[in-house]
């Protein structure tokens, strides 16, 4: 016998199934978020990190970029089209200037187009220790990723100038 109570429970179960399917099914947005997580995890550095580990992490970050990739970070004069090796060298250099650093990405918005391309906006928050002083920085990042051979790779990255002197 179908009662209001039973119908309610059935509706809740259906909603739970739909929600679970939505959460579990793979999607381009999830794949891109995974790449961003890989970026943040490997950009971060512990105080006792070994050089080999730093090299491995830099390589992992560089692997997220298309070869070549357009990058625009005007504040540190790193603007142009760079090969994966150049990007890796730069990442190694920047990471080496920190004793320890934590990188987190917030407020990520992803817009996937039909042409295997996605526009991503996010806020990068960095906190760490450089020599004898604490370092904290926040930047807005605008990036384009393209699905190349099944992987979502950065094809352009730009630091948005929120405050300009």
């Amino acid at each position, binding site marked *: 016998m179908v009662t209001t109570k039973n119908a309610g429970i059935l509706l809740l179960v259906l909603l739970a199934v739909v929600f679970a399917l939505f959460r579990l099914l793979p999607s381009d947005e999830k794949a891109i978020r995974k790449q961003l997580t890989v970026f943040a995890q490997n950009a971060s550095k512990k105080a006792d990190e070994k050089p080999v580990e730093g090299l491995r992490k830099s390589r992992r970050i560089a692997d997220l970029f298309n070869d070549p990739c357009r990058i625009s970070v005007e504040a540190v004069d790193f603007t142009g089209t760079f090969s994966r090796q150049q990007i890796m060298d730069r990442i190694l250099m920047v990471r080496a200037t920190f004793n320890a650093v934590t990188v987190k990405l*917030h*407020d990520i*918005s992803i817009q996937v187009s039909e042409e295997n391309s996605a526009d991503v906006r996010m*806020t990068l928050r960095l906190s760490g220790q450089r020599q004898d002083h604490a370092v*904290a920085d926040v930047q807005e990042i605008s990036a384009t990723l393209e699905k190349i051979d099944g992987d979502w790779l950065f094809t352009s990255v730009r630091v948005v100038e*929120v*405050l*300009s*002197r």
Partner: protein
Amino acid sequence: MNWVKSFFLPKITRGFVLRLLVVTATAFLIFSQVLIPLRINGHSMEPTYRDGGFTFCWRFRYLLTEPAHGDVVVIRFSGRRVVLLKRVVALAGETVEFRSGVLFVNGQPVDEPYVQSASDWQLAPRVVEPGKVYVVGDNRGVAMERHHFGQVDRQRILGGVVW
């Protein structure tokens, strides 16, 4: 003492569940859209706002008015999770500069009682573009290169601080 018991251990009735839902939804709407809680992380607005402090962003602060000199505004990046607190020092069309740590707007020195740290900042005069305001933190004790300041789009101002 009966009311204490009924307050902490209420009977789960349909009315109670409805009231609970309404209160939860209202609180969620208010604290996510109107009064956004902010935990201060950093030293750029010291001594006015100290690291670890707490305040709220009042979203309707500039609904009918425009940011003015001396206002502390909340500036967003790609969303609302990470924001900046900065003080408005110059408006569109005004000329701003620093001479030996002293702020000059339109060629006149500005009295800034909220600045407690001495600085040696030097910044050549520049005109604030239309649709923008010029913001600086209160803590001028740090090197200019390490301080986030400059002109920002009016559209990026989320609101003002409550205190």
